């Protein structure tokens, strides 16, 4: 799976879970500061991403996922 595909799938999840405009989602964007995804929405995003990408994202790892790019890197490594 390419980085672009993962970003695109994450954009769909972010839109469904937190109403984020898909066109605003890119690797350099911060979940909290740029996309305004709060910690509870982040929990929902992580759960949806686990289902979508077939990976397990531990609680202690979630705090390290500051940007969309961080999430892409983790998903690539874990899948």
């Amino acid at each position: 799976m390419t980085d672009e595909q993962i970003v695109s799938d994450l954009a769909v999840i972010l839109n469904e879970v937190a109403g984020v405009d898909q066109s605003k989602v890119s690797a350099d964007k911060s979940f909290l500061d740029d996309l305004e995804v709060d910690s509870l929405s982040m929990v929902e995003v992580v759960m949806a991403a686990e289902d979508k990408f077939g990976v397990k994202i531990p609680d202690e790892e979630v705090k390290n996922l500051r940007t969309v790019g961080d999430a892409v890197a983790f998903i690539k490594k874990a899948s």
Partner: protein
Amino acid sequence: MTKQLRNIPKPKGSKVSGIGVYRPTRIVRNDEIAPLIDSSDQWIRERSGIIERRYANSDETVAVMAINACAEAIKDSGINPLEIDLVILATATNPAQLPNLAMEVASKIGASNAGAYDIGAACSGFSYGLAIASESVLAGDCRNAIIVGSERMTDFVSNKDRGTAFLFADGAGAFVVSASDEIGISSPTWGADGSLNDWICMTKDWPTYMNEKDGDFPALKMEGQKVFRWAISEMVGIAHKTLEKAGVGVEDLSAFVPHQANQRITDHIAKSLKLPSHVAVARDGINMGNTTAATIPLALDTLRRNGEVKSGDLALLMGFGAGLAYSGQVIVVP
């Protein structure tokens, strides 16, 4: 030859025959809480959906609130208090180890023929107690039973804790459960996972507190994000299981009444259940916060008062929280 014992004949079913609540008089809006936790009205609303909640004053004790809720439920039911054979109080906030409070409640509501005891299953307590009340009626042991949830969470929550101060509040709610020719309360789906008991617990126990020189009072603490994830991932399956046990589907429901922990949890579960548009979703927590064992009757009372459910409708009730524990059942609304 040993003489045969006998049991009282069992009724065909049990039903909720009355609902009563007690809402403390003092309304506390987010603006009053926000400065203590370096927050804002907007942050609290976005985080929880809560706009305001009720805080009990010193006269509105766990017992007093329970008595008021029970009295209203008895009136709603139309039964004579002398026909109540069991009073169950679900609470996590009795400030004393002894005596338990259900006995005082039974006396004050005129249920002088009733047995009485307290149970504790925190936010699941009302649903657990409703199941016990129903089974007690179905066994033939009781003509009528009362289950009441009553809480003064503000006695056990630090008003400076960012994770809990804005969530928890005070109040009480009660159901009268009566024998019936039809099934008005389905079998419960319940469970517990004690391996997660430190996700919602107290900062310390009483002996630890007493041995400290200047320690803080024991207060509730919660791993909010972990509990959020557990609730939204586990409760959808439990809801489906509960409906299946009751032999109904989401399309048969008129109301979904989950424990009012946080409107974000309610939103997620309701969405995942794909509830049809005619199903009213209880959102009493917006105005009452999280009153632990009291949220379910309070929330159903509001739906009834607003005309969002009527007598004969089916409602799915679900309690979940500290323990961790959960319980759910389907009832026919009285």
